[in-house]
């Protein structure tokens, strides 16, 4: 899936995002879906098309996670995406509970993208009992989103 500007979210960035998402939304547990069940690349591609500041923020956060956090928080040199899952979990939990505001903020940004991608999938939102078609409310179902306005 391409963004409006033609840039696909891929390469190294996608590897790091996927490695992070694997921990943020792991296999098993209360919901029988995980990060591999969603189109993370497609969602991230759309996300980075929403403005250079969103793109910069996500890429910067992933860079910090990949290159700095393993050494800083788990005393393990090496790339985050190449670490075993338990070490990656330790790193992200440390960011989540860090007293350093910036570290919490960087993880929050990545987590926002991942969780929004996950729960935007109707299989998953319906699994937890949500429907954007409120029972009893007559909403005309439209197959597509925005439409352009005709010229007069």
């Amino acid at each position, binding site marked *: 899936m391409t963004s*409006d*500007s033609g840039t696909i979210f891929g390469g190294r960035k996608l590897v790091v995002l996927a490695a992070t998402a694997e*921990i*943020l*939304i*792991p296999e*098993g*547990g*209360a*919901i029988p879906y995980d990060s591999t069940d969603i189109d993370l690349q497609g*969602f991230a591609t*759309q*996300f980075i098309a*929403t*403005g*250079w*500041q*969103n793109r910069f*923020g996500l890429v910067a956060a992933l860079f910090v996670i990949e290159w700095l956090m393993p050494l800083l928080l788990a005393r393990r040199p090496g790339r985050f995406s190449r670490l075993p899952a338990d070490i990656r*979990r330790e790193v*992200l*939990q440390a960011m*989540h509970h860090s007293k350093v*505001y910036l570290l*919490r*903020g960087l993880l*929050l940004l990545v*987590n*926002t993208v*991942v*969780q*929004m*991608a*996950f*729960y*935007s999938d109707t299989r*998953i*939102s319906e699994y*937890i*009992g*949500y429907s*954007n*078609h*409120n*029972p*009893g*409310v*007559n*909403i*005309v179902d*439209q197959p*597509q*989103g*925005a*439409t*352009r*306005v*005709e*010229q*007069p």
Partner: protein
Amino acid sequence: MRTIDATEFTSSTKLDCEIVVVGSGAGGAPLAWSLAKAGWDVILIEEGSHFRTNDFSRRVWESTRTMYRDAGGTVSLGVPAIPIPLGRTWGGTTTINSGTCLRVPEFMFDKWNRDTSFQLGLQDLLPYYQMAEEIQNVEPVSDTLMGEGNRLFRAGAEKLGLRGKPLDRNTRDCKGSGLCAFGCPTGAKQAMGQTFLPQALEAGLRGYTGLRAVDVQVRGGRATGLVAHPLRQAGDLRINRSIKVKIQAKKVVLAMGSIYTPWFLLRNQLANASGEVGRNLSIHPAAKLLGVFNHDLFGWQGVPQAYLVDEFHEEGIVFEGAFIPPAALAFALPALGQELKSMMQDYNKIAGFGVMVSDSTRGKISAGFGGRPMITYNLNKEDTLRFRKGVAIGAQVYLEAGAREVISPIFGRERIRSTDEAKDILSMKLRPADLELIAFHPVGTCRMGSDRYRDVVRPDGRTWDIPGLYISDGSLLPGSPSVNPQLTIMALALRIADGLNAKRN
């Protein structure tokens, strides 16, 4: 009558009118409506796209991506960093807000009159409040439509003896679909796109979407029109510089909102002899309070923002209902991995409310870089303590209503499981960085008042510095109104239009 999609222009063009309005939200739409009905030749331009009721997708990401500026990622930099969701669509932020319509309370008008040169009082705006309320059918939320999260908070508040009431909202035949913040899918929310704008188009308003103003033309010190470019395509962030739209007008009204109107003025070095453009930013920050119950309550059904607890209003603390679909809630929960999955499995057991603080903190809009404003805001100690009190009280309310725990916005105290723990918050040392906040009501950045050295805009809406240049949006307010500001922005817009209409007559 339809709007015209400027992204389909194939060549540069010149347009002529008497008044051009930039922005179709709560400041631009009522003003354009009043002027068009009075017979002015009015053009209104809007950067966003025109989504009709049937266009709303009801999907969080699709709606956020297409109707919110920055996909909802407009953020003030500071401690803490605070998201300030803004609309970028026909109808402005009114298309994606909760629909709450409240008048500024009298004590706040008194404060403004005392502390600033804002001269208007409740009585001055009363006829305009009434007009806006009538056109939008402002009515209190009925009990049957109230979301369960609101009912539970009400129950807890009543047990604690806290004053509250159903919220007034701009709705007609509301069905309680709970999607107010993503475009009302039934057309019940009487936002600008359902009321002022269609009526204005019928009265002869020419409305253009996908068109971004880039500069005001000033000749002999007077505003004579503006220059705009269409976006490359509907919804795009980039403009098509090869196509220029010049709009000649006798008067120019900027109604782009409290972030973008001052940014526009700063970028183009306009109307800032006072040095006050962009200053005095108040955002009315808010924080979540999520009650987790032992039974399914389906908090997403019914009106999400239906009840108000205003016991502490004069202290600057109010509580209003709030709830959001899973895609917008999950990342706000204090858990990761399997623990988060377990919490989200109980999504239907979660109820939501919000605490808002009428801030004494003041931030700033700067010209920024990369085609974006820079918003800076650092929460001060006074407001931090207000949040401490608000969270402690709000948690007690939901616990009193039967919640087994309350999710709070305080780092290190995210899960409150007893009244003692809630009360304990009042004595904790709380730093601004410990708070997770969001804000929906930026105001104050082009203050209206009678002092040309402290205010950007005169009491009649004209800028002090440039004849023919007006402002009509939330930036006019001297400070936080302590309630949702859209009704007051509309009232001010109608008053400004009245002044223009009187001159015409």
